[in-house]
């Protein structure tokens, strides 16, 4: 059975200025031990997708359609109590800002022991030892000392590693990591990815790694989903998506990443601006920035499967020539 099956997910925000269709048609499946990269630019709906899975969307936002199945169990419409039980236990989240997870006025050990005891009857001493081992596993030196520290006494990278340790405390089956390394240096980023990778592999946990950085998921993910304006516009195995992108937005995004073989040359730039979620163009949301747009694109492209394991929303994909 898949760990997670998301189908037709739609999460909208009903704001005074209008309805923001933050997530508007997201489908994917995640198997045990699989790492999925969810990429897309700011505002494309990555975080809201993660929040929807965790049942953390607050008003004025609401899941208005679709289904989220965790090991076959429907989470959309599930009681709050059940979602709380899953969160931090079977499903864990790592946020970009570690202070979303950490309480600034409590010592690390207090927080970690609490996180264990919230889901399991464990004597305090055993919980404390598990917390200490957890810190060791994410590469924190002298974990016993760190356990006595307050969050502000740790560096940013150290704090983020503590939240990873907390996320893994109860051996979750699914981890949603929302840009956990975006604010950090490459050296610290590599340490954190290394730890997350290791723990996933050792425990067979599945992971969704949310980022705007294609290079990070290229080295980490088995599969990539590319989001644009609330939809997954292209998905597939990492190598396929990066080496043979089909969607014009993916092609543009890949072309805009500086890399050694493009040194000193002009980068391929995606024209126009990032979309205004309150005034998306009719039909394909990428239409006004797309060089391949045609009359067909005035309608909404549905999901197609151009090759095994790949998904696409586009009328005139690359690799398939546009009829003159």
């Amino acid at each position, binding site marked *: 059975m898949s760990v997670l099956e998301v189908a037709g997910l739609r999460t909208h925000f009903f704001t005074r200025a209008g309805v923001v269709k933050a997530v508007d048609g997201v489908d994917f499946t995640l198997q045990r031990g699989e790492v999925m990269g969810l990429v897309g630019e700011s505002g494309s709906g990555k975080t809201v997708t993660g929040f929807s899975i965790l049942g953390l969307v607050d008003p004025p936002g609401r899941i208005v359609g679709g289904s989220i199945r965790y090991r076959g169990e429907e989470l959309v419409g599930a009681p709050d109590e059940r979602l709380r039980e899953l969160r931090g236990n079977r499903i864990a989240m790592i946020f970009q800002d570690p202070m979303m997870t950490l309480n600034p006025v409590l010592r690390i050990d207090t927080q970690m022991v609490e996180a264990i005891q919230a889901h399991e009857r464990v004597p305090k001493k055993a919980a404390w030892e598990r917390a200490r081992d957890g810190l060791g596993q994410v590469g924190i030196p002298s974990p016993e000392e760190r356990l006595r520290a307050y969050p502000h006494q740790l560096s940013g990278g150290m704090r983020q590693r503590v939240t990873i340790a907390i996320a893994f405390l109860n051996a979750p089956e699914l981890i949603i990591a929302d840009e956990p390394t975006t604010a950090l240096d490459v050296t610290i980023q590599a340490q954190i990815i*290394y730890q997350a990778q290791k723990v996933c592999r050792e425990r067979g946990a599945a992971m969704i790694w949310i980022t*705007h*950085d294609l290079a990070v998921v290229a080295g980490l993910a088995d599969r990539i989903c590319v989001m644009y304006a609330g939809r997954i516009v292209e998905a597939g195995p990492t190598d396929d998506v990066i080496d043979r992108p089909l969607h014009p937005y993916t092609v543009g995004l890949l072309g805009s990443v*500086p890399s050694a073989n493009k040194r000193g040359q002009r980068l391929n730039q995606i024209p126009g601006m990032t979309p205004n979620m309150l005034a998306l163009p009719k039909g394909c949301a990428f239409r006004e920035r797309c060089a391949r747009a045609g009359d067909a694109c005035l309608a909404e492209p549905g999901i197609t499967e151009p090759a095994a394991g790949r998904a696409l929303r586009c009328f005139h994909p690359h690799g398939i020539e546009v009829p003159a």
Partner: protein
Amino acid sequence: MSVPLIEVRGVTKHFVKRLDLAGKIARRLGADVDEEVVHAVDAVDLAVRPGEVVGLAGESGCGKSTLGRMMAGILPPTDGEILFEGIAASEMSGAQRRAATLAVQMIFQDPFASLNPRLRVEQIIGEAPLVHGLVDRGGLSDYVDDIMRNVRLDPALKRRYPHQFSGGQRQRIGIARALAVRPRFLVCDEAIASLDVSIQAQVLNLFMDLREEFDLTYLFISHDLSVVEHIADRVVIMYLGRIVESAPTEQLFSAPRHPYTQALLADVPRLDQRKHDFSPVAGEIPSPLDPPPGCHFHPRCPHAMPICRTQQPVLREIAPGAFSACHLDGNSGT
């Protein structure tokens, strides 16, 4: 070789970290607490030749912005000299100093914070050239239009305010404001870091076009090594206030010599590097309040020797145009 457009010799910047209230009270009560000194930049030499793009990279807090601000002339050094076209700032006449001030401009990371929200775009761009007499009132409107076209902004938008623009457009306004005084040297400090991926490429392309059009020289500061690799002719790597390596871009990326550069490059995620095990450099960035003695990198260096703990390695030319500060003299393999 030509005279460097801008050069720093032994520049140092110390920041005194003032005691907070708790610290002051503790000291009054006789506790042994002192004001701490951050060695943000420590005796750095760097020369930038006309037309060159120098990329400056290194981990957060290593002193990139501090060095950049000193080179831009907006932060006085604690020690050392800054020369513009071979003339030290301390020896310039008033006119020379004014010319140098205009010739060197800075572009910041956050385009919003650096633009006055109450001014229209035409005022933001036109103010300095008018004050400095580069243009008169009659010619101002056309002048602003030209500059806006240079940065690919529609002059029809010039009566708008900064908040009416997207992030990428605001960064263009910042670039236009700098260009308006006809600078020769631009210090770009994380100038594309706050922009969305698809917009980063637009602004990076603009920087490359402007370099050609206006014969500009850049110090391009970025923590993103792929950006530095893309735009720079020469790359300078800093670690805890010191330059550890400087080399032509291609050399530095294909054959890094300093152990720190090697570790840093190994950690950069790359599109062409598929599913692999990340194997990060060990250890934390030490505190700049109390940097390790000798070679600052020795606690994390896989090649550290006894001498590294006591003696600071000097920056030496170890191949034509390639400098490294390491007791191994760049023989650490790759």
